[in-house]
């Protein structure tokens, strides 16, 4: 579905961030991209929606070549890829609803979006998604009034309302506490499952990657050093990715924690939803 071949990025400063990367992501696969800071994780997913221009290589999403698209075609392409950001990147002074609806900007005209007159179907979908993540009662709150976990849920809604074919997720848990991090990761995984959506998730946290991804790709200094299932991630592999450290405890802990699936049920009772929204 997504096919990356020979992706190379050299920044204007001369740093070679990616050295000819090849990744294939099949339909519906949730893939985690791990690696130390500066390994090029962010560059990979930013090249896919061309927030960063690749220096060389090809990227195709369902047979459309992304590299070299004209600006109009690039916009149409970006509609097909939802992105979830580190630090949420919500427009803070817009309301929750406006933030979610901004995911539809690629589909409506300027004056329509300027007047906030989105089609009723978009509004229905926005409320449905907000209800799904437990925030429908917050639609008219300003985004900066929300807690971190709530903001990231809004970010997820903004990406999903695009009805994307691929989800690009950049460090979704970087500024969240451990419990909220798990809830967010679980939510992303469940939503991908419901929609048969493929996702590439950049993540620092090896434990979370192991818990929630079907496949892990390890990146080091712009090169792929591991590509395989989470349970093959041995201390030796982690040493290769991150360098020497006592990895045994990290891995074992991940196994212990993998079990509890209590947080976000598909149909939520109202108390549960309030708790998600951070009200209790």
């Amino acid at each position: 579905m997504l096919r990356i071949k020979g992706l190379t990025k050299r920044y204007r400063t001369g740093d070679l961030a990616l050295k000819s990367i090849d990744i294939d992501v099949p339909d519906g696969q949730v893939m985690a991209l791990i690696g130390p800071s500066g390994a090029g994780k962010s560059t990979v997913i930013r090249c896919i929606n061309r927030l960063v221009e690749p220096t060389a290589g090809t990227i195709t999403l369902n047979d459309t070549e992304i590299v070299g698209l004209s600006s109009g075609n690039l916009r149409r392409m970006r509609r097909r890829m939802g992105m979830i950001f580190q630090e949420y990147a919500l427009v803070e002074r817009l309301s929750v609803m406006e933030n979610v609806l901004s995911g539809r900007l690629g589909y409506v005209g300027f004056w329509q979006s300027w007047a906030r007159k989105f089609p009723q179907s978009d509004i229905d979908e926005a409320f449905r998604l907000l209800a799904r993540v437990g925030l429908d009662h917050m639609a008219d709150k300003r985004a900066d009034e929300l807690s971190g976990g709530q903001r990231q849920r809004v970010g997820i809604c903004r990406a999903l309302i695009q009805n994307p074919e691929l989800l690009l997720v950049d460090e979704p848990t970087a500024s969240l506490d451990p419990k909220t991090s798990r809830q967010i990761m679980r939510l992303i995984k469940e939503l991908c499952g419901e929609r048969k959506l493929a996702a590439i998730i950049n993540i620092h946290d090896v434990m979370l990657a192991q818990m929630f991804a079907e496949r892990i790709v390890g990146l080091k200094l712009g090169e792929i050093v591991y590509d395989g299932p989470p349970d093959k991630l041995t201390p030796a592999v982690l040493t290769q990715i991150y360098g020497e450290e006592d990895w045994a405890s990290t891995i074992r802990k991940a196994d212990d924690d993998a079990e509890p699936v209590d947080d976000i049920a598909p149909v939520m009772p109202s108390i549960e939803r309030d708790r998600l929204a951070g009200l209790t």
Partner: protein
Amino acid sequence: MRNLAVEHRRWKKPPAIKRAWLRWTLIVGAAVYLSLALGTTHVNWARVWEGLPRGIQFITAFLPPDFTSRWTEIVEGIAETLWMTVAATVVGIALSVPVGIGAARNIAPLPVYYFCRSILAVSRSFQEIILAIFFVKLFGFGPFAGFVTLSFATIGFYGKLLAEDIEDMDVSQAEAVRATGAGWLQWLNYGVQPQVMPRMIGLGLYRLDINFRESAVVGIVGGGGIGATLNTSFDRYEFDSAAAIILIIIAIVMAVEYSSGYLRRWVQ
């Protein structure tokens, strides 16, 4: 233990200018310049003493302020000034928005950036009075010259601050909107505008305030409005009417300043 007790390391705040010779040259130079400058300003104290009673006479000529004899001219002048202020603020801000967006380095291509920056530089390099003298020559006496002056000055002020505010915006918020496939105008409307809007509303009100005060000054050099009325009353030695006009200007400035300050707090 003994070491701790004995060793006192001395510490002094490091001087702002490290090189001692440069520091002392600057200090001595400034002192010499100041004393020379004071020396060349000749103050004739005898004349100052003589002038005092005349000054008092001048000031008493203002009292009591006479609101009645020139009331129609005053009302006309005030109406003209208010028209000039509001129109110039609205037109100036409307024109400065595209210029300001073009002058923001992070969103405008380089040629557009230089073009818009040069408009701002021209607008900002002239004081309102100089612009007013120029436009009065161009359009003749009257409030239109004042209106053009203030509009042009507003572009420089508002456009520059808008450009700087856009340059300081949070890139990730704008990037997220871009990533949804939004068009350029949609991106401005959703990703950029919400970030700069509260400050720009505040600055718009502040500019209204400035334009009112400037319009009185601009009137004196021929730009119409209450400034012209004030100037005429001085020329006719009608100091009591002038006093009335000054009091009215002060009252309006205070009213505008207070209400714009209140509105700005409310916006933020």
